[in-house]
């Protein structure tokens, strides 16, 4: 069999390869190889910071949340055992961290919140730009009025494009509970946009 090619295996995609390499690095990190862990941090941090920024709305808080999540992951790696993909596991840790931050947040006054909203820089015609900007600003403000759980489920579903099954796993509740929260969030948001128009 020397040099024989195995042509029967299904073709593998780059993301399969990435997951396989993540699993290998996670095992090494669990065994104390901090360089392997640094590679995982570099690889996964950008997507996790984007997720946390969407959940929390401020970049600096998002970076702190992701930093804490990685440190927590380093401590918990010996018990990780690769039951899910490393990326999924981190996504779950970051989501939970952000949920706790949202729950602990005191209500922000509308003026403070308005200062945080960056104007989106693309849309079609000038009239559409004004309208879209107004609606986006209104949407961001309305997001602050959702409960932390509604906000998290809605952001993961609508903005991050995750399945209900994935969100249920990430947040640690049933799919039905996720559906109920997304529904309530949509209801609040459509009403807010309706009022704005």
């Amino acid at each position, binding site marked *: *069999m*020397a*040099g*024989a*090619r*195995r042509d029967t*295996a299904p*073709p*593998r*995609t*780059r993301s399969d*390869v990435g997951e*396989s*390499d993540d699993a*290998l690095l996670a*095992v*090494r990190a669990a*065994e*104390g*190889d*901090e360089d392997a*862990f*640094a590679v995982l*941090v*570099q690889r996964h*941090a*950008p*997507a996790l*910071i984007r997720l946390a*920024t969407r959940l929390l709305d401020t970049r600096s808080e998002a*970076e702190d949340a992701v*930093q804490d999540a990685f*440190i927590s992951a*380093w401590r918990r790696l010996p018990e990780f055992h690769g039951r899910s993909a490393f990326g999924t596991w981190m996504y779950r840790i970051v989501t939970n961290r952000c949920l706790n931050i949202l729950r602990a947040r005191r209500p922000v006054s509308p003026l403070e919140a308005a200062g945080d909203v960056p104007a*989106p*820089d*693309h*849309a079609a015609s000038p009239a559409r730009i004004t309208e*879209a900007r107004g*609606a*986006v600003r209104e*949407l961001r403000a*309305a997001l602050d*009025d959702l409960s932390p759980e509604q906000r998290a489920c809605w952001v993961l579903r*609508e*903005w991050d494009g995750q399945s209900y099954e994935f969100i249920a796993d990430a947040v640690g509740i049933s799919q039905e509970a996720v*559906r*109920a929260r997304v*529904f*309530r969030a*949509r*209801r*609040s*948001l*459509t*009403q*807010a*946009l*309706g*009022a704005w128009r």
Partner: protein
Amino acid sequence: MTAHTDPPHHAVDGDDEQLACGRLLSGVWDAWERGHEDPHQRTCPHCRAAVAELEELESVVRALPEEPVERYKDELTSLTRRVMDVVRLELRPGRPMPLGEPAEDLWIMESVAARSLRAAAEGEPGVRAGSCRLLPHFDAGGTGPLDVRLDVHAPADASLPELAERVRLRVLEVADRQLGMDIAAVDIRVTDLLDPAVDDQEGRDR
């Protein structure tokens, strides 16, 4: 939200609404999201208004900034440094492993030895080393020869027995020459096969 404009629906409970046609808002939106074809919903003005509200929301979501993941790479170096600063204060060096002769009282931490042995295995083109455990023979009092248990990802086009033998020799050589470690056996477990066509950084030059 407190500033509701009262829609022409009836509240069923705190969560849902019954539309004037009798359908529940949650059901109408759910059918829309699942892409269910429903003749009633296609023609009913109340259902269509409810779906239009949701579609309006979706269009605003699409107007949110696109934010490609690359935009989140600026702070990466400092974030990685901050994480790794903490990690290096909380290293997991593993157990001390005996080096040299039994009488010598010389030890190396498991994770340090594993780093060298993994690097030795990866000297074989196309091989990636994963778990690397050192197993002392405790019946010999924890000193004396060790067994190495090494997991590797191997190139899919390699002959595995021959590859395993080459990896074993590389590991034994580094253990002997670089670490001065007495190894009784190197058990190699192939945990994944890498397609050289996909994994194009390594394993091409075979």
